[in-house]
């Protein structure tokens, strides 16, 4: 016997109902609006039984008399369930706390998946895309970036020509594919653009004391280009932006990143790993060509004397250019014997270098 509420589908009146179940039918006793008992007999074939999980109630509805229904608390239903034929019994597995745990488990899994995807899968895919990016598109991209910053750079075409000769002489690469430019600005810096453009600032050249430093800086930048560092970086920041905007639903932002990144490629900071890679591989390239890798170390020392001092350890950690001293250490460990292995062309390099430094 179970107690529930009976609704007749005609008015909103609630009627107390007592339900007895048997294998064929439900016997229902309700009290009508005057309080008199009334007997109903619902054939089990003509009713639907449903568990409303949110209202946590069992609802019995008459199929032959639409609108007539009975509502039972779950515990009341369970008290008559055993008397119902098996095929009509509800399969109720409800335990809100158990369910909450499943929710927590799924959420944690999703979060873990997201974190893993964000830090591992995404950079991996970005890397793949960057490495397979068509070369002529990369060149076009680099060219348009270079065009957009050309005015600010104040390019000196004569010195650029000399610089190009210097670079070609190094034999790092097929000379046609990399273009080197001399910028008349005072920055103590040089940078590489995807597709093979290297810009060296006047400030850096004048700070150098030795042509081997120029060999070093060109080797360093060339490695950035060869390993597509900036392209990889661009794709990486793009992909993480894509992921974030997928979560927060802002796709328009991607366009902003592309524009922003292409404009700021110059100040784009490579990761510490990339810088170190460019140092070591650049020096190796120099050795391969019989140039003195000491040039790379001298270059770091020049940069060091001209860079603002970073006192605190925190700043050192935050800086994307690994601390210059650390970079020097790395190089010195890699090339301990500072024996000068002079290349036969050194005189030519020296002359071009001095030419570049000369005020005209």
């Amino acid at each position: 016997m179970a107690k529930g509420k009976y609704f007749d589908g005609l008015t909103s009146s609630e009627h107390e109902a007592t339900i007895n179940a048997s294998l064929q039918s439900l016997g229902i006793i309700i009290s009508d609006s005057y309080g008199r008992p009334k007997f109903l007999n619902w054939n089990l074939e003509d009713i639907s039984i449903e568990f409303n999980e949110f209202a946590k109630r069992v609802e019995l509805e008459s199929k032959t008399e639409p609108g007539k229904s009975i509502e039972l608390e779950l515990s009341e239903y369970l008290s008559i369930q055993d008397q119902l034929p098996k095929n009509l019994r509800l399969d109720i597995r409800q335990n809100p706390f158990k369910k909450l745990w499943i929710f927590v488990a799924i959420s944690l899994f999703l979060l873990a998946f997201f974190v893993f995807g964000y830090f591992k899968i995404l950079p991996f895919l970005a890397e793949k895309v960057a490495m397979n990016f068509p070369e002529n598109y990369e060149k076009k991209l680099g060219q348009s970036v270079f065009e957009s910053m050309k005015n600010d750079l104040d390019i000196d075409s004569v010195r650029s020509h000399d610089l190009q000769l210097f670079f070609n002489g190094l034999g790092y690469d097929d000379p046609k594919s990399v273009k080197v430019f001399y910028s008349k600005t005072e920055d103590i810096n040089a940078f590489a653009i995807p597709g093979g453009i290297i810009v060296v600032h006047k400030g850096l050249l004048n700070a150098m004391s030795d042509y081997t430093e120029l060999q070093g800086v060109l080797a360093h930048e060339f490695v950035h280009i060869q390993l597509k560092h900036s392209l990889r970086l661009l794709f990486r920041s793009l992909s993480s932006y894509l992921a974030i905007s997928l979560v927060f639903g802002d796709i328009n932002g991607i366009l902003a990143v592309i524009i922003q990144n292409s404009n700021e490629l110059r100040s784009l900071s490579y990761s510490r790993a990339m810088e170190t890679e460019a140092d070591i591989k650049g020096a190796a390239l120099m050795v391969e060509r019989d140039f003195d890798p000491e040039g790379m170390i001298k270059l770091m020392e020049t940069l060091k004397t001209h860079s603002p001092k970073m006192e605190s350890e925190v700043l050192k950690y935050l800086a994307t250019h690994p601390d210059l001293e650390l970079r020097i250490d790395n190089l010195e460990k890699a090339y301990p014997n500072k024996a000068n292995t002079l290349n036969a062309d050194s005189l030519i390099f020296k002359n071009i270098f001095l030419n570049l430094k000369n005020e005209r």
Partner: protein
Amino acid sequence: MRRFYFADTGNTYALPFILNRILTILTLSLYYPWEKAVQLKYIYNNIMLDGSHFDFLGTGKEMFYGYLKLLALIILFYGSFGVLMALDLTIYAILFIYIMTAIGFIFAVPFFIHGGLRYRWAKTQWRGIHFGYRGELKEFFYLYVKHGFLTLITFGIYYPWFRCQIQKYITGHIKFGHLHFEFRGKGEDYFVIYLKFILLIYITLGLYIFRFWRNNFNFFTNNTVIIDDEKGEKYKLSSEVTAWAFFELKIINLLILVFTLGLGFPWVLARNMSFLINNIEIPVNFSTDHIRQTETDYNDALGEDAIDMLDIGFI
């Protein structure tokens, strides 16, 4: 004991929410109508009035057909734009056609609202008694376009009157068994609420938004009346919610969403519903015992999803 309240804290919706969300994402949103049906069932089943819960009888399947129709409209809209591009017309011709289509879309809004209201109210029930929306599309469309036009040419100044007219029409055509409703809000009163908002929002560095929400909520609640023609009685709803309550609601909701990366949505939903429902007072003398059944079934769900997409809320 409250007569009208929301009965859950969000716990029971957590699992259905995440499972449905995953399905929606995996099916590229095709599953969305089913997800929505579950959500509506959750909401309705937890709104309690005099010890009985509300029911939402709509199904994902019904809403899916409406959703497909809507998708077809959207594809048609963007597809036609693509075709126009391919036709090699002048940019002005394309722009003209595009603007005309956009205007056509604006004209479609009342259709969607009407369809959505018809479906939603027809699927709402309490103790077996159906709700219903008996507005006429023609009347509603005329009203919407007329007042919409006035809003347009007054650069939005007319908006409060527009909003009140629409609310008056919609509320006036909602039936709950033999009961019906009335909205008494006046455009000029609503205009004052807006005016204060515009004047004070900058001075208070945006903090006035909570007071504005309060005023807005109280305005719509306090101007809604339940009418029982058989007894010849009218029952006024009321609300005394404070701006501080709004502040607390919104700030905590924001914190929940941010710190759970959106996974805390079920609790935010429950908090919103509790806030909404628990702040509506029903007059003591309003009896829910003898509401007579008058409304019938209605199944076309076109509009149900459109109003969702257009973010037009109504209750």
